[in-house]
């Protein structure tokens, strides 16, 4: 429908929508996070769900204890290499469509523990992260901001066509490979389909 006609109709009190908008409105208005905290960021996540910050205002207060009922995984805290396969497995067990918020410096990059031998340097090496929140830890407002950004992202997702999200394509696999414990590091050290290291170009010029 033409956008101008739609504006005219809404001025006359006639609300028009599309099935896609209605569907995305429903999805983004009730994002259920997985009840899943790894470190200190989880405390801020808990604070965000309580009365003062009240994540229920955005429809995301139903923290689910089971991955089968969750839409959103908030990776809240340091992901150790011991824990990383469990995180990926939990993400695999969530039903589509599913989203990931990497909360805090540790979940993004390893944070202050980046040099640690047993700390994963960012959960985006194994699962596709939709929103990154910097901070150590991020305040609850930052988590709410991330949720709003995620809602914007969900609202813009088409249901059909070439640019539809990953889970709507029948031929794209729904599970991500779970890393195994190796003698020195996780095997494999990263999922190449999800994450590639930043390319550093060194030139002699200059």
């Amino acid at each position, binding site marked *: 429908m033409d956008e101008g006609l739609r504006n005219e109709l809404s001025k006359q009190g006639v609300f028009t929508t599309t099935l896609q908008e209605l569907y995305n409105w429903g999805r983004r208005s009730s994002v259920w996070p997985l009840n899943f905290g790894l470190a200190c960021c989880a405390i801020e996540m808990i604070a965000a769900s309580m009365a003062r910050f009240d994540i229920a205002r955005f429809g995301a207060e139903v923290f689910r204890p089971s991955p089968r009922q969750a839409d959103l995984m908030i990776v809240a805290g340091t992901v150790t290499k011991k824990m990383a396969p469990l995180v990926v*497995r939990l993400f*695999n067990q969530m039903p589509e469509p599913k989203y990931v918020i990497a909360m805090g410096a540790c979940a993004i990059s390893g944070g202050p523990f980046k040099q640690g031998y047993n700390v994963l340097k960012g959960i985006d090496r194994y699962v596709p992260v939709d929103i990154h929140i910097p901070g150590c830890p991020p305040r609850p407002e930052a988590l709410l901001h991330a949720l709003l950004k995620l809602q914007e992202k969900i609202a813009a997702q088409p249901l059909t066509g070439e640019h539809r999200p990953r889970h*709507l394509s029948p031929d794209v696999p*729904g*599970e991500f490979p779970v890393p195994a414990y190796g003698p020195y590091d996780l095997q494999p050290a990263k999922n190449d389909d999800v994450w590639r290291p930043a390319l550093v170009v060194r030139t002699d010029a200059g």
Partner: protein
Amino acid sequence: MGGTDQSYLFLLVMGVVAVLFCLTPLALARVWALLVSPAKPGDEKNAPYECGIRSVGEARVQFHSGYYLYGLVFLVFDVEALFLLPFAVAYTSLPVGAVVAMLIFLLLLVEGLVWAWRKGVLHWQ
């Protein structure tokens, strides 16, 4: 058609409506899934355990038959606690006969305890 037939017809209609009321959302969800949301089951996704760790071993675990003694002793104390609480609450207003009956009941349970004691169940091995 008589009045009784009519009431059974209502029952039938209500049953059909109830079944349709349940099946329609399920059918709509299935149609929606077929249209835009392809199912992608997998080993990890279908795993029964939901805490990120692979499940190990069998779910059907057998206990040693010797545990029946513990079961019996548990029953003695459990039933005793269950009946002693209302007994204690209503104690002052009970007639003598009820108190005597309750004491006999308690004696029966204590007898079970004595039996277990003599059999050596209460000794921790």
